[in-house]
């Protein structure tokens, strides 16, 4: 299939629109008023550029073809023409002014500061997004859900390869949703092309962006600012639902929270924790410490057979996972993961790869957090 396309391409690079039918070549028109305005503006500038290019390159091509020495062309001696030079300064200036007018109008619309119906705080972490619905008790992390073996070419890649997450941010259609965007560590950029929202997430500062989505659907984007090693693996997925479906989702969130609380209070066996911990490890730890726990020497420490994994390192190990290590890439996972997930992943690390370092319970994690 790909070979066919390549052959097709090489046979005629820009021959007909049909060639490009299956090749993505332009901006998405998007699903918001702003994204439509931006798309139209983009097309206007594009056509202006094409028109200028046709004229300029046309004259140039004509000169190249007809004023060659081999065709007997004799060089003329003019090398200045004050009026022509003034004219080709003023005309482009006029074209620019004409382009600046709609651009300014669109920009003013984008900076519309009116009240929003829903406020969501979006925080960039290396390398995941956190969504907190302000005024509602909803707070979760959104991780890449593409399995590692697809990335390593050991499995067939799925349709939404690298553009899928475990928990998308859910918003209602037709409502003004405001995103308060910030970051926890380095600068990220929250970008969803179909909404035409791209806003940098800067640690210590809060940026504002907003959208009103017209059609329900799932809209995918990616982090757009180099944020370290897994910059390419930090998708954004927005799930826009009808008002009724959105209300249903809100209700389901409360239930999920109750279930998580119940899980934290139940008694866990070591086996159960280890098997749950393996899953958590894959989403939250594997990128740095590797599947074999060896880490990356010089950058990320290994977890195999270190003093920390001996039985007296248990509480120190738990503290590092919960509170992070300042000044390093090791984040504080205390607020990112539930008590059960924390207990599970710590127990898993202490018993995987030949380690033999005991277990920790969700209740102990809770105590540790309260210290």
């Amino acid at each position: 299939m790909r070979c066919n396309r390549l052959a097709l391409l090489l046979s005629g690079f820009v021959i007909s629109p049909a060639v490009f039918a299956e090749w993505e070549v332009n901006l998405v028109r998007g699903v918001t008023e702003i994204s439509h305005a931006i798309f139209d503006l983009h097309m206007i500038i594009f056509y202006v550029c094409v028109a200028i290019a046709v004229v300029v390159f046309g004259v140039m091509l004509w000169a190249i073809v007809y004023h060659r020495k081999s065709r007997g062309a004799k060089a003329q001696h003019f090398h200045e023409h004050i009026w022509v030079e003034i004219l080709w300064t003023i005309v482009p200036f006029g074209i620019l002014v004409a382009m600046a007018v709609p651009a300014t109008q669109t920009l003013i619309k984008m900076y519309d500061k009116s009240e929003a119906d829903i406020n969501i705080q979006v925080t960039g972490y290396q390398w995941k997004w956190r969504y907190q619905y302000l005024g509602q008790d909803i707070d979760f992390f959104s991780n890449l859900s593409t399995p590692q073996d697809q990335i390593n070419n050991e499995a067939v890649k799925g349709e939404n390869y690298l553009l899928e997450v475990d928990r998308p941010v859910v918003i209602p259609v037709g409502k003004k949703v405001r995103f308060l965007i910030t970051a926890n560590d380095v600068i990220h950029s929250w970008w969803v092309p179909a909404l035409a929202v791209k806003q940098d997430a800067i640690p210590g500062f809060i940026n504002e962006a907003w959208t009103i989505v017209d059609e329900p659907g799932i809209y995918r984007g990616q982090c757009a600012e180099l944020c370290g090693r897994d910059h390419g693996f930090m998708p954004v997925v927005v799930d826009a639902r009808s008002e009724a479906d959105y209300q249903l989702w809100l209700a389901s969130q409360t239930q999920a929270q109750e279930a998580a609380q119940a899980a934290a209070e139940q008694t866990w066996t070591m086996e159960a924790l280890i098997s749950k911990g393996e899953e958590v490890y894959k989403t939250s730890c594997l990128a740095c410490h590797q599947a074999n726990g060896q880490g990356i020497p010089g950058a990320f420490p290994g977890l195999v057979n270190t003093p920390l994994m001996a039985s007296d390192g248990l509480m120190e190990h738990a503290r590092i996972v919960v509170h992070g290590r300042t000044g390093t890439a090791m984040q504080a996972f205390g607020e990112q993961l539930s008590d059960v997930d924390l207990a599970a992943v710590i127990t898993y690390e202490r018993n995987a790869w030949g380690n033999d370092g005991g277990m920790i319970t969700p209740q102990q994690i809770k105590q540790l957090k309260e210290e």
Partner: protein
Amino acid sequence: MSTLEQTASTGHHHGPAKGITRWLYTTNHKDIGTMYLIFSLVMFMVGGCMALTIRAELFQPGLQLIQPDFFNQMTTMHGLIMVFGAVMPAFVGLANWMVPMMVGAPDMALPRMNNWSFWILPFAFSMMLMTLFMDGGGPNFGWTFYAPLSTTYAPPSVTFFIFAVHMMGISSIMGAINIIATIFNLRAPGMTFMKMPLFVWTWLITAFLLIAVMPVLAGVVTMMLMDIHFGTSFFNAAGGGDPVLFQHVFWFFGHPEVYIMILPAFGIVSEIIPTFARKKLFGYTSMVYATSSIAILSFIVWAHHMFTVGMPLIGELFFMFTTMLIAVPTGVKVFNWIATMFRGSMTFETPMLFAVAFVVLFTIGGFSGLMLAIAPVDFQYHDTYFVVAHFHYVLVPGAIFSIMAATYYWLPKWTGNMYNESMGKLHFWLSFIGVNITFFPMHFIGLAGMPRRIPDYALQFADFNMVASVGAFLFGFSQLLFIYNIVCCARGGKKATDRVWEGSHGLEWTLTSPPPYHSFSQPPKVD
């Protein structure tokens, strides 16, 4: 003074010293120019290998050759090496060779400093390349090294990187001072400013840009150094600093820097097109004014790299309007080049082919630049492959094609031998096709939504990435022809005449080919 007179009177020949000391201790503008050019060619190949590593990894989706962290090191080093190691030293090398010959001087004004400004560079780049072998790897935060990724989260080798940048900055400033001093003081009698060749003019303006902005770069890396080692918080919000401050300072350097990499190219093309059109440059005066306006405008547009950082509306509007304004003087330049070709008597030797390709492809890069200037739309383009396509169109067929054009144009003058014309033409066509296959599809994947600086991508971007990688390898390997041609030309070949090209003009063509070791021992007369 008396020794000078004595040697002159005894007719003692001031030739080059023998052996390695000729190159180590030389203060001769031609030797130093040659060293700059060879250094930049080596760096071009090193940076090119890094680019090919990147393109090989991006040939298809999934991780196959390298890990993401190493990918980031490659993108960072590729950018730094191409900007500071390939393009800038090549232009300085051309200036060293040509400026004294074009203004009728015997040498550069400050020859001893000239030696220093070159020899700093190999040390700076050795230091920077060494970081790749250190614990934690080399710089992995992009050539723009935005804080706090480059401060709080950087590998330990970042300190080496900072010192390397300092050394490059010192070298650039010394080179710039030398060029200004030469142009101001050593012009032949009768050569007024408005009679100087355009290459000299563009380099004069570039040198002022360098002196204005390299200290800003030095400042920003020093602030980084203090944040990392001395507990300051310039870029750390938790200590009262601001990560966006980094970007403002960086781009106050970085935007004029992109003009440092293109203004000398304008000068080169303004020399070559009239030669092969056998006609005087159209609108010399407006060329000079346009170049100066571009240089001045370059200082007030820096934040167009930062439309998405959360600037207030009024800031976005200011930077959008000023950025759009740059299209006017740039347009004037393009129109003038075309008017020079118009009604000329053109031939298409290799330098002319590269110069014409420069005009066409640089203009395409200008169009995408104009699109990027429109702030609301930039929200969609920013940090995508559309930007990668844009700046590679202005830097590869822009800066680098002009350097190649200059090399072919002046190589017979430098060596005294003609290069192989058909090999030159083959090199041009392979490069031209390669460059377009590489960078044109990047416009499409950028618009379709592929971010920059990612080692792996979604499936919808696969086809165009594959095309781009094929083009990159074509472009990369065709540069071997370039090197082969230069080496052959340096070793011998058909002897070149003094004037070399039928339509050539200017003082450098009044000297022999190759020129004497000290260019003009008697100042020439300029009417």
